[in-house]
């Protein structure tokens, strides 16, 4: 009999939504945004170290991040936070027995909310 396979190398297939249902999209989005936000959190903490160096360092740094490349990055962070947070509400609710049979509808509603909020923030940021 062959060995029961332990296959950490298949992790890339976590992110393969082909033939999968909506729940897998939730899983994929949660994982990608979670990892992205963790990376951002630590970059953000390091960046805020500029505050300790005084007004010139910080204000100079802020002037730098006002260019469009950083703005797009910032929008990505906002989008990730909204998606991860709102999907987190779905995970939390279903974990405590609320809306299990309606988890797909819940996901669609929450992600629509996220989309609206992302578009709103995009307009605000790029309108200036």
């Amino acid at each position, binding site marked *: 009999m062959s060995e*029961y396979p*332990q296959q*950490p190398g298949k*992790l890339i297939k*976590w992110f393969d939504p082909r033939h999968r249902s909506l729940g897998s999209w939730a899983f994929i989005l949660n*994982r990608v945004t*979670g*990892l992205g*936000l*963790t990376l951002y*959190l*630590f970059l953000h*903490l390091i960046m*805020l*170290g500029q*505050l*300790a160096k*005084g*007004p010139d360092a*910080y*204000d100079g740094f*802020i002037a730098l991040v006002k260019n469009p490349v950083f703005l797009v990055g910032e929008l990505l962070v906002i989008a990730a*936070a909204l998606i991860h*947070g709102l999907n*987190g*509400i779905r*995970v*939390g609710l279903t*974990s405590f027995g609320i809306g299990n049979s309606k988890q797909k509808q819940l996901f669609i509603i929450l992600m629509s909310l996220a989309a609206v909020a992302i578009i709103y*923030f995009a307009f*605000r940021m790029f309108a200036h």
Partner: protein
Amino acid sequence: MHDGFDVKSRMGESAGAWFFKVASGGLIILVLFIHLVINHLIVEGGLLKYADVVKYYQTWIVPFMEVFFLIFVVSHSLIGLRSVLLDLHPSNQVLRWLNRGLVVIGCAAIIYGTWLVFVIVGRG
């Protein structure tokens, strides 16, 4: 592994870690919402000037809120990262080092962030 079972006792995912992840997630949503409202809606143009940031931190509740937020965000993100790594089934030895590494990174981030909050409050 024998007959499909693996119940080696090790510090893997547990009821406590999972519960903390869900509970801290809820708290983060709450505080982040307040943070977004203040930074992007109430304060015109956001808290982008050094002077504005220092002024913002003079309100007594803000430093408390930020340190509280920092602790929960750092813990939530590192426990979440650990869940992802656990899905790759690290060996006991790798997991031991992983646990130590994550605790050190988490504590360092929290201490550094708290220090930063005190520095900014002190500049007021």
